């Protein structure tokens, strides 16, 4: 369990393995089911499904291994994806829609369009990303439950 101030709100934590395209979407589907069971608003579930799927595909495409966790706080849902892998050299560039370092094998499956991080950011109320090249990347998204939209990036 990640050691954070909101650790006690942890709802689920899942390991995702690099290059495991066969299981892509499995973690997102489990998170979606978990949120539905908790009676979370449909629109919020739709946004988190996008975030979870893109984060899951990013770990599969670019990292060695990663952990996806989600937390239900009284006023927000926190989604976190932490991976070990090559990391991101230039975060600003990686956030630009259309920019991608995906190889042909990834693109042939319809991934690697350079929309992943942009979709994650668009679907979050608060989006934070840190990365250390050669080590890994951490993405944290906050989705407010009361309709507030606080835009804070990076």
């Amino acid at each position, binding site marked *: 369990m990640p050691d954070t101030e909101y650790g006690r709100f942890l709802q689920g934590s899942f390991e995702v393995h690099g290059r495991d*395209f*066969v299981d*892509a*979407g*499995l973690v*997102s*589907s489990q998170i*979606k089911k978990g949120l539905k069971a908790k009676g979370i608003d449909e629109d919020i579930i*739709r946004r988190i*499904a*996008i975030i979870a*799927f*893109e984060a899951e*595909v990013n770990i599969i495409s670019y990292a060695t291994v990663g952990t996806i966790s989600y937390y239900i706080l009284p006023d927000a849902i926190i989604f976190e994806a932490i991976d070990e892998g090559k990391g991101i050299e230039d975060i600003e560039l990686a956030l630009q829609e259309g920019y991608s370092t995906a190889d042909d094998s990834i693109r042939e*499956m*319809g*991934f690697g*369009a350079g*929309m*992943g991080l942009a*979709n994650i950011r*668009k*679907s979050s109320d608060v989006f934070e990303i840190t990365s250390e090249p050669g080590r890994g990347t951490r993405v944290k998204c906050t989705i407010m439950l009361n309709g507030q939209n606080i835009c804070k990036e990076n």
Partner: protein
Amino acid sequence: MTLETIAERLSLKCKCCWEHLKKEVSGGYAGDLLSDVMANSAAGNIWVTRQVHQNIVAVAALKEHAAVIIVQGATPEKETLEKATREGIPILVSDMAEFELVGRLHRLLYPEQA
């Protein structure tokens, strides 16, 4: 309009989940980039694509699509049909090119705009 009517009018071949063909379709979406479909399609949509691998089922299930239509006579992979059967997502195939299929589907769903 139900999937059954659409399948009949557009001569689509159903590859799995026949039992779900009574489902109503809310509209359509066409695309081969999974991120685009994740971001912009809606629940109940019928998704038209040229992709055949099993990740299309993951997307269709997450987005709660009514069905997926694979165009250009492409054959869905065996694993795709197995996963679709588990998830209850009908996979339909058409010999038409994506442009042709989408045009006809749009006329069928929105005759007032034709």
